[in-house]
């Protein structure tokens, strides 16, 4: 029997997930966004270094990349509610046009100026300039949204970033279609008619939007009849994959189609769609680990030479300056909040799937010097901006005060310990307190459960409003009943450092409404009541919401 020692695909996927998640945890300690960890680990696993993830394997995963991009587009679409369009629509258009067009213009001009020093053929230089310029307009939605989700951001900057990264893919496509048509006219023998260029753009964008609307409508009609989580997630994923498949079949843009479907359902069935996006969102952590690690693995930096490096640097400078200045200009024109004006320029650097996809498309349309140069320039610069982009974004969203504002009840519970939530003001009932004294304490506070302690504040039991009620209904006992007589045994108690998730498990397991929090010496430190836990979490959520609203 002959054993095949080559790592099979399942081992590689397992390895990728484990290495990716371990790396991201390590990077998190240095406050580096996880996406960078995934890409670097992928880069080392890929052909450029270790060669564990090879080209053959990567090509078999091309469908997976489309799937992740599609889901990302769908989720971004979900953020674009009618109210947001009404509120930010003008701002989106201004910023989109200024950052996209300025990046296009600056990259084209810079590449043409510097390229003329290295290439004799000016038509090649112009082709490179125009194609690279058009690719520069797009921003990576997956890498961008991953950072936003990782840092749980909320506020005007977050909304603007989501709107822009969702839409500038469309702008990139339009610019690329124009650029490639002009390039054909410059370098090719068959010059396409302007009308056919515009027809192609119209077809690609219109077709994507139409597929998205039809898919979104179908999904909405299905979801109206489905209420279980399993049904919601399976029908949603099935429909998204079909949308992506059809979009690919008729050569439209998968991201735009999925995004349109997301926009459609978030506005057509707003309440139901919240559950759809919430469930879909839960898939993202694992999808992103694989997506970005594979992405890192496919980056090939072996064919670099000096002219290419210089053009790549020029491309980076032009794109960064164009996006930065353009975003700032657009934000100023549309009188966006100060935080958007100040920090948006730092949030649009990422480029990934769309840019690489367009570079591959350019390579297939213009094989040879132009195509090869574009692929290597985009690959190299993508590697650089994918490292710099998320870092810059983290600094920007933190500076804008939006990090940590998009927190759900589950997040607060997941990140809190008993000591963070416990009520430290709950009055202690000493065991020798009489019924009259206990009733006085009850009348002064609104708790339902009180810890009974000895003189050293060590927990002995609990008095509930319910068991006091029994004592009140019986006469003649008030003179000699003490807290000691009325206390109930403690079913469970917890240490202050116990995570709230475990606290909730204990409350559910014993079906109890309260839990005393005690030190290692059984001294009462605080008290947790179910209703007080919910109240505290709601207060925290409202505070965060107010903070986010104050930024607008």
């Amino acid at each position, binding site marked *: 029997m002959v054993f095949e020692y080559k790592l099979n695909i399942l081992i590689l996927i397992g390895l990728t997930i484990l290495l990716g998640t371990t790396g991201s945890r390590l990077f998190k300690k240095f406050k580096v966004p996880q996406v960078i960890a995934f890409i670097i680990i992928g880069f080392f696993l890929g052909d450029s270094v270790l060669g564990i993830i090879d080209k053959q394997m990567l090509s078999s995963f091309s469908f997976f990349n489309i799937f992740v991009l599609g889901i990302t587009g769908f989720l971004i679409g979900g953020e674009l509610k009618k109210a947001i369009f009404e509120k930010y629509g003008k701002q989106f258009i201004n910023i989109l046009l200024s950052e996209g067009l300025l990046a296009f213009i600056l990259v084209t001009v810079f590449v043409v100026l510097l390229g003329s020093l290295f290439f004799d053929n000016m038509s090649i230089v112009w082709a490179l300039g125009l194609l690279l310029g058009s690719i520069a307009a797009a921003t990576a939605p997956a890498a961008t949204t991953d950072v936003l989700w990782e840092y749980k951001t909320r506020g005007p900057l977050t909304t603007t970033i989501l709107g822009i990264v969702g839409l500038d893919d469309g702008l990139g496509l339009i610019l690329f279609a124009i650029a490639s048509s002009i390039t054909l006219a410059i370098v090719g023998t068959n010059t396409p008619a302007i009308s056919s260029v515009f027809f192609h753009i119209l077809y690609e964008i219109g077709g994507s939007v139409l597929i998205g609307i039809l898919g979104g409508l179908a999904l909405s009609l299905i979801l109206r009849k489905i209420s279980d989580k399993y049904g919601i997630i399976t029908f949603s994923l099935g429909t998204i994959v079909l949308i992506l498949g059809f979009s690919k079949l008729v050569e439209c843009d998968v991201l735009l189609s999925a995004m349109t479907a997301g926009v459609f359902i978030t506005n057509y069935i707003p309440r139901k769609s919240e559950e759809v996006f919430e469930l879909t969102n839960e898939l993202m952590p694992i999808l992103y680990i694989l997506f970005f690690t594979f992405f890192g693995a496919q980056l090939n930096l072996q064919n670099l030479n000096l002219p290419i490096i210089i053009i790549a640097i020029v491309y980076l400078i032009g794109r960064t300056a164009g996006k930065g200045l353009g975003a700032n200009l657009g934000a100023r024109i549309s009188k966006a909040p100060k935080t958007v004006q100040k920090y948006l320029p730092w949030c649009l650097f990422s480029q990934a799937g769309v840019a690489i996809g367009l570079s591959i498309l350019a390579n297939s349309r213009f094989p040879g010097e132009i195509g090869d140069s574009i692929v290597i320039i985009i690959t190299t610069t993508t590697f650089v901006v994918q490292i710099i982009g998320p870092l810059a974004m983290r600094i920007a969203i933190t500076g804008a005060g939006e990090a940590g504002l998009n927190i759900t009840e589950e997040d607060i519970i997941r990140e809190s310990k008993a000591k963070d939530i416990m009520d430290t003001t709950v009055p202690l009932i000493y065991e020798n307190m009489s019924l009259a004294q206990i009733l006085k304490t009850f009348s002064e506070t609104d708790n339902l459960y009180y810890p009974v302690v000895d003189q050293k504040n060590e927990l002995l039991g609990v008095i509930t409003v319910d068991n006091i009620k029994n004592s009140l209904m019986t006469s003649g006992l008030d003179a000699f009943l003490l807290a000691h*007589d009325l206390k109930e*045994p403690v079913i469970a108690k917890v240490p202050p450092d116990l995570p709230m998730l475990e606290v909730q498990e204990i409350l559910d397991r014993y079906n109890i409404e309260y839990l005393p929090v005690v030190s290692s010496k059984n001294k009462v430190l605080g008290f947790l009541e179910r209703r007080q836990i919910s109240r505290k979490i709601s207060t925290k959520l409202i505070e965060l919401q107010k903070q986010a609203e104050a930024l607008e």
Partner: protein
Amino acid sequence: MLELKDYIDKNLISLLKVKKKEKILLKLIDSICQNREIPDSKELKDAIFYREKLMSTGIGLGIGVPHVRIKGIKDLIVAVGICKQGITDYETIDGIPVKVVVMIVAGEKQHKAYIKFLSLIVSKLKDSTVRERLFEAKNEQEIYRILNS
């Protein structure tokens, strides 16, 4: 519906000739431990004396109701001791020496039954005729009848 007769046990009634609180409490604890299954007699003793330390259970009118709730007790246990000459060191609200001691031992989770029984026995003993008859009772049998009447 909880009634006194369900819990008053002939075997746990004693006519005693002790003068000290500690003695009568110990006698009643012994009587409970001998007649009923008590998981830990020391725990019972400690609990009774600890409760008395917090505040005496002499509720006035010559009545004492030492009571505790402890783990492992399935049903209420009631022991009665009559001490005609009175126990002078049993601190009471009104200073009258205690002559009737009703010791109640309940399970940890028997809050309702425990409070209800306390209430029933206290209201019964607050009746001066009942008290007079108890102080005059000649034997345990008679005490049993008076309490269950």
